[in-house]
């Protein structure tokens, strides 16, 4: 049954519909893969019994000629940032270690109602803060890819949705949910050789997702094909009155133009993304991506996004500021860890000192500082103004072009232990993904090829707000041209 773990969502649906296998058989094959690859540490909590129950319900529906939708019976991994009713939800943090939500997040609820089969809660950087999945209290996640040429060093899967990316790349799950604040879907997708789509801010409800930076956080699909990403987004998206920032717009058919090609479309290549010290292989794959689109009839033009280099510093004011506010709720009173103290204040301080890891403390303290009296205008207000300029750059660019092509990340997956001493070096991983986040734009990473070392490299497309239809249309053209069929050895 090993072929069952190689299926796409589309392939699984076809096999289930024609009776080639049952949802239970499909679930069991993935549960077996989850057990076999436990050493990757892709999951914080495995839910095999829940998966089988979900699968049985799916089989029962099919037996009656019913379907809950295009993901009915499809085994998925759920990033452990989504609150799931009755299933422990930790956000990768010690402080939420005992937390069992009595409610279901809107997006995980839609996937559940859509018949998907939940294999477990995927590992992630603590509170989604990280780019290598090394800040999880539950240990780092291993990327199933290793370099060629005898270099067997363990590679990071990227972050923060590292468990999700590893689960999909290692054929443990057909698809996974991710969340993206500054690149947390796209960068791990690039590092693990899969597709990761961050929708427009407001496309998917944030209700029930543990909050990191509320003006940036957005849920999205992580899959092995562009078509699957469109299908999964179809199930996840939609207006939700419980999230006031959820867009009150009708959900389009995201796959409407999937096979329409790119003839006549205009693709922008921003000159400011040619950063100093960019590795030659990143530049090469980027040029290759542009050539692929040109060969299929798109017009590729150079554009300018002048404030690109300020996006990352802006992000490291805005995101920590919002995080310091959001994470104030973890006080040892209502849920999670409590560490006693001599009085209430000391209980707060002890709880938060023990419950949060170093990266989370770092961001809470930066956020507290930039919001504090005397510094608010110089840092936070200034960053909000620069954010306006970043958005303006994109708005002007999209007057000329239909989508923007860049590399996803400045490198392939690095080895565990690298870039760990200097937080700023780690933050630079997100240099190409953060600008779209700041502007709330939809963006997708598609596998483009392999690095000189034999590790996956992603190509990144940025689209107009609420135009995921064109985004996946162009992404499909890249996927067709790249013909990426490499897979991690042994998976």
């Amino acid at each position, binding site marked *: 049954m090993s072929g069952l773990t190689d299926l796409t969502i589309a392939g699984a649906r076809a096999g289930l519909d024609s009776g080639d296998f049952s949802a239970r058989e499909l679930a069991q094959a993935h549960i077996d893969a989850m057990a076999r690859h436990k050493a990757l540490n892709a999951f914080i909590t495995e839910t095999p019994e829940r998966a089988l129950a979900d699968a049985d319900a799916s089989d029962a529906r099919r037996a009656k000629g019913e379907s809950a939708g295009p993901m009915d019976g499809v085994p998925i991994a759920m990033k452990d940032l989504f609150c799931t009713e009755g299933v422990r939800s930790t956000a990768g943090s010690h402080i939420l270690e005992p*937390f*069992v939500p*009595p409610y279901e997040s809107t997006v995980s609820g839609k996937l559940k109602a859509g018949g998907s089969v939940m294999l477990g809660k995927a590992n992630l950087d603590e509170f989604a803060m990280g780019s290598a999945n090394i800040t999880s209290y539950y240990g780092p996640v291993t990327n199933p890819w290793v370099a060629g040429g005898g270099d067997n060093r363990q590679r990071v899967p990227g972050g923060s949705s590292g468990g999700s990316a590893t689960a999909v790349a290692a054929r443990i799950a057909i698809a996974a949910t991710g969340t993206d604040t500054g690149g947390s879907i796209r960068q791990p997708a690039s590092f693990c050789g899969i597709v990761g789509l961050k929708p427009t*801010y*407001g496309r998917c409800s944030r209700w029930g997702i543990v909050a990191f930076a509320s*003006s940036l956080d957005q849920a999205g699909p992580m899959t092995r094909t562009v078509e699957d990403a469109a299908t999964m987004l179809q199930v996840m998206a939609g207006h939700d*009155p419980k999230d*006031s*920032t959820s*867009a*009150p*717009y009708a959900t389009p058919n995201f796959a409407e133009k999937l096979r329409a090609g790119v003839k006549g479309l205009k693709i922008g290549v921003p000159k400011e993304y040619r950063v100093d010290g960019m590795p030659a292989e990143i530049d090469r794959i980027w040029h290759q991506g542009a050539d692929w689109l040109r060969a299929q009839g798109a017009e590729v033009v150079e554009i300018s996004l002048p*404030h690109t*280099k*300020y996006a990352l*510093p*802006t992000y*490291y*004011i805005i995101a920590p500021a919002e995080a*310091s506010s959001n994470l*104030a709720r973890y006080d040892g*009173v*209502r*849920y*999670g*860890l*409590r560490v*006693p103290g001599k*009085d*209430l*204040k*000391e*209980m*707060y*301080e*002890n709880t*938060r*000192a023990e419950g949060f890891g170093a990266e989370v*403390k*770092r961001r809470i*303290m*930066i956020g*507290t*500082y930039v919001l*504090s009296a005397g510094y608010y205008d110089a*840092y936070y*207000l*200034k*960053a*909000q*103004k*620069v*954010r*306006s*300029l970043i*958005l303006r750059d994109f708005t002007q660019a999209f007057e000329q072009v239909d989508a923007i092509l860049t590399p996803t990340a400045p490198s392939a997956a690095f080895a565990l232990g690298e870039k760990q001493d200097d*937080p*700023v070096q780690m933050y630079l991983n997100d240099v190409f993904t953060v600008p779209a986040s700041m502007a*709330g734009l939809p963006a997708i990473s598609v596998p483009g090829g392999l690095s000189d070392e034999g590790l996956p490299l992603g190509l990144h497309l940025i689209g107009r*707000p609420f135009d995921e239809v064109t985004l996946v249309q162009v992404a499909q053209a890249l996927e067709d041209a790249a013909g990426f069929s490499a897979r991690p050895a042994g998976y």
Partner: protein
Amino acid sequence: MALDQATVARIANLARIKVTDDELQAWATDLSAIITFVEHLDEVNVDGVEPMTGVGDFPLPLRADKVSDGGYADVVTSNAPEGALGFYTVPKVVE
């Protein structure tokens, strides 16, 4: 700008995170590197630029000020580290 130990102590207090005296210098060095990095924004002229305070191009929705949910304190408090009778409990704050 470099943050000194007193500033770190003040921030840690505001953030309600216990930082011991022997950790202060390490945090000061660590946080200073990030603050120096974000100060690249000093180069940007933002005269006349409005701050971006929201992302959506639609107004925030309004709803009637009516209770629409509730009545299950036991469920709401089910994750409390300590609680009693449907309430959260904390160390004594009033003498």
